[in-house]
């Protein structure tokens, strides 16, 4: 049987945060979380494909203990198994270390056909983890999948889009695909799915289960280091105008300097 692995990330419900003007720190009214939207579409793409090809769908998340919630949701949608990668050793991992942990989990799960990633996470906006896992495993990748056309044996026929460039490719499995919100509608979890999910266990793996040395992942091992975070300096000296003619003057001046 084929095996599809879907990666889901728990992200803050809103990235709209306020800055405390005195302490210059983030004020988050609450710590509500959600499953990253693109990742749910990745799950949907895997479940849709399963209908045609038959497959086991394994949902994987890396994160704190609370990330079990996104895996519960994945089980309700219809994933067959769920694995949470959680350990203090993973905290502070950048995209390279994250992709190392995920690639190690893929190796442990084994015998996979397609890895499904959301195109990007709304809290990091990097769009790097999927292609980095593909690179770590040395498998081909479909960045910005538009649609899966068909599966022919070990080959996947897919449409991809890189800006203005549209390609149809045949790609050999195992491979990785990156899915975004533009890929269509999400189905709703069914009552039977919800009931089944109640009975399912979420497997939990740490660095030992992945045969990883705790020193090669996490904050210290990450190639990139955040050295500081600052409130952007946007306060400019503003000149107030009082009529349309002063706007026209500025435009005139700009047009003159351009010609």
């Amino acid at each position: 049987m084929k095996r599809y692995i879907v990666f889901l990330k728990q992200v803050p419900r809103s990235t709209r945060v306020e800055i405390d003007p005195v302490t210059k720190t983030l004020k988050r009214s609450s710590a509500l979380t959600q499953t990253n939207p693109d990742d749910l579409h990745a799950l949907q793409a895997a479940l849709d494909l399963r209908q045609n090809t038959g497959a086991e769908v394994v949902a994987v998340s890396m994160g704190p203990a609370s990330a079990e919630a996104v895996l519960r949701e994945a089980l309700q949608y219809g994933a067959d198994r769920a694995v949470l990668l959680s350990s203090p050793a993973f905290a502070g991992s950048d995209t390279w270390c994250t992709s190392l942990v995920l690639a190690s989990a893929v190796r442990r799960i084994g015998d996979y056909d397609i890895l499904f990633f959301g195109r990007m996470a709304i809290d990091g906006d990097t769009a790097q983890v999927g292609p980095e896992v593909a690179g770590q495993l040395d498998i081909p990748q479909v960045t910005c999948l538009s649609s899966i056309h068909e599966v022919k044996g070990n080959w996947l026929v897919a449409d991809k889009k890189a800006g203005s460039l549209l390609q149809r490719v045949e790609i050999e499995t195992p491979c990785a695909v990156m899915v975004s919100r533009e890929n269509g509608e999400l189905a709703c979890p069914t009552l039977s799915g919800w009931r089944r999910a109640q009975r399912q266990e979420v497997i939990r793996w740490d660095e030992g289960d992945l045969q990883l040395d705790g020193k090669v992942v996490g904050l210290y091992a990450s190639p990139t280091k955040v050295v500081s975070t600052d409130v952007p300096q946007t306060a400019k000296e503003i000149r107030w105008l009082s009529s349309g003619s002063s706007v026209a003057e500025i435009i005139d001046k700009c047009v003159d300097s351009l010609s």
Partner: protein
Amino acid sequence: MNNDTSFALRVLKERCTGCGLCADTCAYNAIKFADVPEIDSYACRLCGSCVQACPAGALQISEPETGKTAVPQEETKGIWVLAEVEDGCLAPVARELLGKAVVLSEKLHHDVEAVLIGGNVSACASELIAYGARRVRIVEHESLAAFIEENYACELVRLVRECRPEILLVGATPRGRGLSARMAALLQTGLTADCTELDIDSDTGLLLQIRPAFGGNLMATIKTPAHRPQMASVRPGVMKASEPDYSRSGEVVYADVSKVSSDRRIRLIRETVEASCGDSLENSRIVVGIGRGVKSLDMVNRIREWAARFGAVVAGSRAAVEAGLIDAHMQVGQTGHAISPDLYIAIGISGQIQHTAALAGAKKIIAINPDRTAPIFGIADYGWAVSAEEALSQLTAGGL
């Protein structure tokens, strides 16, 4: 709860004043506060918000004992720009990256080099030299004619391993993002996505990679101390290309392509290039942006007529797109285009961070909004506190 002393975030209990700011700041509910903070290391992501929030310095993310002084073993040289070519033409971001690379090279004293890869790309070399490249490396082979990430990554990684650049800059374009991430994985180095500013640390000579974090509310500065090359992708439209000088001389080096082979695991069936509507927006010198304060399509049409008088393109905020006032491909913002015109005129735009983050490169901004406290005025050079309707009647009445 975990009292593991090896966890990187530590509480210095003797310094804690018990104010509780750390627990309020934590987005992950990883801090429980009794008398002093207790860190749940299974929930903590080491984001550092609490360290910054603590006025007493009672929270520290400790540096590892080893690794702090770790430096790359091999000698590296050169500031490289991966120059993206689309349809035989240089992507605008390539010129922008070169402009920044030249500025960086003044502090770092490394040569600026550009890399071209594709089936037939050498014609772009002279343009790259004019925009600041001292050397252009060309990886040209017929099997690289189609953009296949696996093939491009394989050849570029080969070239990087051979020449060992110190820094590698890539445009954060739809092609550049996936390609650079695959390369970073293969090269086992760090990659910072979507930078909006780059600088050189005067103490260490390291590349400072600056990017928006937490939805643009904070700017994070990131370094890659011990891995090479230091890789960063840079948002198109944010940095400024310098003036081209076609009298400059530069070296053109053809990479050895005898080992180029295409990955047998990918077959291209067909390829089409969509007409790109966004280009006119990213290259426009004057842009008029409309927001929710513009109430009707009739007003949009009048703005278009007015803008056409001085050759401006009309774009919009996400709110304007959602209100059906303007096409989605003309959206300026985090999920649309980043632009860097000489003049940006914002009409009826409140100025949410998602919109203003895409205006970092604009030289002058005129903001028109009836609400004097609207955030758009925080980034504007000129402000006019009137409604879009009133503004439009004055602007069109005067003639221009």
